[in-house]
């Protein structure tokens, strides 16, 4: 197989909040005794305003503005088994938040833990145009379950396109094999995964299908197994070790930090591990990556010179954690605890969808206006310029503020307002290029914010219309 596509960039989002597995074990080992033995490291837990969709947007933005906006993007794949909408195009919403042109082809991939790697192979095999692939999962786990200890929320994005100088890695060979093996499942509408016995999965499925497929891919590429320097096997470290031996790649480097510090992020996990390999690889080294779920995907990549200057975004994201000390609050954020937030939480959040559509660029992409007469930037874009010295009509061009630098002009920590994670923090933020907005803040602990602090902007859940089952999103300010 000839080399078709390359990975040109990647981005990672791991939610800032990390729940120590010791904290989980302390709370739940009375019911799940084995949890005590597994209580090492942390798992990433999305803040209350994060879901698979917001995490995908953030990883995609981390992919870097230059490839996203410098080269035209032909397609965007959104891979998730926990996308918020079953029937409303999550991928189109992600694209809209990223301010991608309507002409970008979007595709939703899911239904299997293989969705991320399958999407990656599809993107790598496209012969024209650049594809942005985003994989994101935030799987809710039952309290006291083994999955509660091992899962984590995260997303990874990769920019894929025809091979070109400076890319990070190029695909050498890839295969996709299906097999209706039920290692775990979640039916439509169910809250939790139902997992089967690990030893059976290992012996009857993984140890049979993976070595065979890996051997075929290596044969396709005429690359001997001992040449593989990095191997991505998204299973527990013990199983990964057994599988690496079975594939004759036991000397290859295997990441464990993603599972230890973040947890099993579903469809994003193999991509996070590929990101790890890209951060460790030298040019010309082979990276073998496996995706598992009702079959296997196997991808053989060869690192290119671009890896020398790779962004190390996984390392950054893993390090950017803040410990969530409260297991109970984590339960509440994931909807596993029915908390009485008082009458203020009863507020009707009905959306006027005609307004939301009319203002979709304002709300999804955080687009303000820049006055062509006086240069004033303002949010939202309006018919008449806000600058008191100008006030000209119909002089504004769209101006996206999502990637601007912000400065805190004033703030409060509001203990009276309804907030899923009190206090409700908001304040006036000034954009570097001008303009001001009263905004909600997120991921900032009480007592940590000051006037003049620098902030950046993130796409998050704004609120939830519980009466009609609809989730709304908007941009919030957070610490840089």
């Amino acid at each position, binding site marked *: 197989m000839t080399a078709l596509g390359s990975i040109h960039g990647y981005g990672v989002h791991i939610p800032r909040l990390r729940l120590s597995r010791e904290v989980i074990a302390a709370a739940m080992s009375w019911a799940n005794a084995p949890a005590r033995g597994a209580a090492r490291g942390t798992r990433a837990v999305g803040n209350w305003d994060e879901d698979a969709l917001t995490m995908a947007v953030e990883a995609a933005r981390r992919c870097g503005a230059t490839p996203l906006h410098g080269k035209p993007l032909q397609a965007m794949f959104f891979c998730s088994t926990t996308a918020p909408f079953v029937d409303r195009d999550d991928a189109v919403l992600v694209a809209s938040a990223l301010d991608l042109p309507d002409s970008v082809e979007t595709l939703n991939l899911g239904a299997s833990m293989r969705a991320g790697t399958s999407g990656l192979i599809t993107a790598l095999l496209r012969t024209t145009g650049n594809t942005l692939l985003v994989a994101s999962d935030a799987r809710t786990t039952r309290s006291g379950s083994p999955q509660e200890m091992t899962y984590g929320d995260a997303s990874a994005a990769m920019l894929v396109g025809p091979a070109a100088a400076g890319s990070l890695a190029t695909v050498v060979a890839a295969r996709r094999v299906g097999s209706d093996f039920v290692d775990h499942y979640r039916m439509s509408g169910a809250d939790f995964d139902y997992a089967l016995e690990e030893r059976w999965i290992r012996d009857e499925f993984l140890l049979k299908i993976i070595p065979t497929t890996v051997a075929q891919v290596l044969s396709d590429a005429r690359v001997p197994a001992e040449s593989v320097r990095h191997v991505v096997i998204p299973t527990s470290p013990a199983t990964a070790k057994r599988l690496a031996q079975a594939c004759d790649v036991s000397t290859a480097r295997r990441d464990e930090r993603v599972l230890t510090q973040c947890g099993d992020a579903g469809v994003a996990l193999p991509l996070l591990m590929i990101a790890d390999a890209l951060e460790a690889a030298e040019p010309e080294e082979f990276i073998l990556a496996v995706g598992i779920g009702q079959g296997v995907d196997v991808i053989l990549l060869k690192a290119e010179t671009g890896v020398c200057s790779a962004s190390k975004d996984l390392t950054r994201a893993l390090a950017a954690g803040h410990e969530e000390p409260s297991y109970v609050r984590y339960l509440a954020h994931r909807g596993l605890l029915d908390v009485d937030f*008082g*009458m*203020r939480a009863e*507020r009707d*959040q009905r*959306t*006027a969808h005609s*307004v*939301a559509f009319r*203002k979709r660029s*304002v*709300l999804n992409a955080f687009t303000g206006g820049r006055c062509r007469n006086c240069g*004033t930037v*303002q*949010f*939202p874009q*309006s018919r008449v310029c*806000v*600058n*008191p010295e100008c006030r000209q009509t119909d002089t504004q061009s769209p101006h996206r503020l999502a990637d601007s630098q912000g400065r805190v*002009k*004033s*703030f*409060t*920590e*509001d*203990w*009276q*307002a*309804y907030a899923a994670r009190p*206090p*409700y923090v*908001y*304040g*006036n933020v*000034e*954009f570097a290029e*001008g*303009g*001001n*907005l*009263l*905004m*909600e803040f997120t991921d900032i602990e009480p007592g940590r914010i000051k*006037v*003049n602090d620098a902030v950046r902007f993130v796409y998050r859940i*704004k*609120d939830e219309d519980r009466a009609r089952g609809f989730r*709304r999103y*908007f*941009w919030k300010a957070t610490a840089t």
Partner: protein
Amino acid sequence: MKSGIKDKVVIAGMGCSRFGERWDCGPDDLMVEAFNEALLDACIERDQIEAAWLGVFFDEQNTGKSSLPMSIALRLPNIPTTRVENLCATGTEALRGAVYAVAAGACEIALAMGVEKLKDTGFGGLPERTKGTFEDLYLPTSTAPGAFAQLASAYAERYGYSMKDLKRAMAHISVKSHENATRNAKAHLRNRITEQQVLESMPISYPLNVLDCCGVSDGAACAIVTTPEVARRLGLRDVVAVKALQLAASNGVEMGHQSWDGSHTLTTPLAAKRAYAEAGIQNPREQIDLIEVHDCFSITELVLMEDLGLSDMGRSPHDVLDGRYDRDGAIPCQIDGGLKCFGHPIGATGLRMAYEIYLQLLGRAGERQLRGRSGNGPAFGLTHNLGGIPNRNIASVSILGLLAA
């Protein structure tokens, strides 16, 4: 050339209900309570009123829409009635409607009524409300204390105050208003408090504690206005005249333009300047005897002293702590207890402020009566409302004075 409103309209009578958690009263009861007092005060019959304005804000949990709740509750004789709503300036807006109608000659006697029944909400604080179909999609679901608390962080930053020092001055503002309210039977909160109590009270919205916040109360207040000629015909001797009624509304600069730094209200200085000019006040610091300002929160009152031109910029905390706005200070502020102790039944507040100025000017304020600069009683009083939040609002400034002044 415009001549302004000065001395064209006088107050024939006023009424004000007791403010508080009036669990046994609806808005109709509160309106009747205020209205009966005003009718007796003006010595007129109900059917002499030719037009009426009703100010009410939260109609949803309250009266419902339109001016009909007033017309029906008071059984007005099928006269033209109008409901006005302009956020927290609603009460003053009702007064403005009635005063302008009389000044225009459209009628000789008009009623301005403001009412708000807040305590049917079911929880403390103000009811939740929508900001409109678009803004609900991006603005924070802020509370009133949270929106006004913004002033404190921006003010402290601009003038280099530590939050500790600023909070001491803010605490003094609340202590002063509670002290004043002990002399007012119509106030909701009539207990004395200490600065320490304010500083140690429950945090509401940083840096505001619960004792930095005004109460939440039910109430109604009203004014019957007429021309000086009719007042003479009615046999009224000392007459309080409207000297100025001015508004300034935001146009989006504070919310959207970088020129506003968040430490002050942009509109209040504009409304104040127009009001001083309309009333012929050259030096408000020397001519205004007392003020009733929109002290929804302690920090609001603090910055308003500067916005109204009564303290130098950045000096309000010093003036407050020096007692300049205390009962025995140069310019007593909230002599009736203010929003702090009356609460803020929104439609009623502007008229409740005017009611206190009216009583003080006529020497009828009982144990809280001020002697004024002359020693013979105050000559000019000012009321101020800030409708909305610092990010966008309607500032109203009215000046009342004796017709002869």
